[in-house]
């Protein structure tokens, strides 16, 4: 994830981490901030303590990655770890896709 951010941020790729806590101690903002430092996470993180975004996505898993194209459509959902090289080729393809603003 960190690598993807570094490689593709300049090409128009945005990573948003939505932090939805599973346990009570994960709701503590300070703990999340510490973990960002510890894991050297450079991208934007939304704090979803009330599970609002989680619910609107009908999400049920950690981790879950939604790959959204330039028009705002979900094109690929990756649940769980692994398949990183495929996911990266998805990012590259979506970046290469032509886009004309409406």
């Amino acid at each position, binding site marked *: *994830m960190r690598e*993807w951010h570094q490689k*593709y941020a300049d*090409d*128009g*790729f*945005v990573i*948003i*981490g*939505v*932090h*939805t*806590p*599973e346990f009570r*101690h*994960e709701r503590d*903002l300070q*703990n*999340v901030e510490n*973990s*960002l430092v510890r*894991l050297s*996470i450079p*991208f*934007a*993180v*939304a*704090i*979803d303590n009330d599970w*609002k*975004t*989680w619910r*609107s*996505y009908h*999400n049920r898993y*950690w*981790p*879950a990655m*939604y*790959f*959204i*194209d*330039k*028009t*705002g*459509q*979900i*094109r*690929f959902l990756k649940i769980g770890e692994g398949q990183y090289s495929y996911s990266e*080729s*998805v*990012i*590259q*393809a*979506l*970046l*290469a*896709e*032509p886009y004309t*603003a409406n």
Partner: protein
Amino acid sequence: MIVNTLTKALTGCKIGGSDPVALGHSCAVPFSFAQRQFVCRNVRRFQLVLLALACGLVLAGCAIPEAIPAESDQGDESATVEAIQTRVAETRAEQAAAKEESMAAASEEAQDQTTAVEETSPALTIGPTAAQQQLLDKLRPQGEAPELLNEVWLNSEPLKLADLRGKVVLVEFWTYG
């Protein structure tokens, strides 16, 4: 060579033929028929063992070709050695050819991989490659991504997907725990 020596020993002895007791000093002593039979049998056995050993050595010579050239330096250029040397040379030539072939195959493979990498690398200005277009065709739109509803953000001002049109966005649900 050893094989020749053994063959000479076998043929020179003239044993196992008409008069096996012509060998050695003991042959001068007259034997009874039973004794002659016994000696004859044992000599034949010995002969067989020698033959078996000779065969074994020839086979070993073929199996360990590296050992043969060292011996041939001693000047014994028998037909067997020549045959073995030819075989060794052939085997080496075959091995070299096989190695060359595999190297050629490997370099071809490497070239293919390079081409593949070039194909998959992002070509942002000239649009998707054929492979990328194929992938994009498979990645059908699954509906508009719901808007992000959060007010508290780290590492960034609050973001809205609506403001990110034209960008590829990865939304990842995660928890540090």
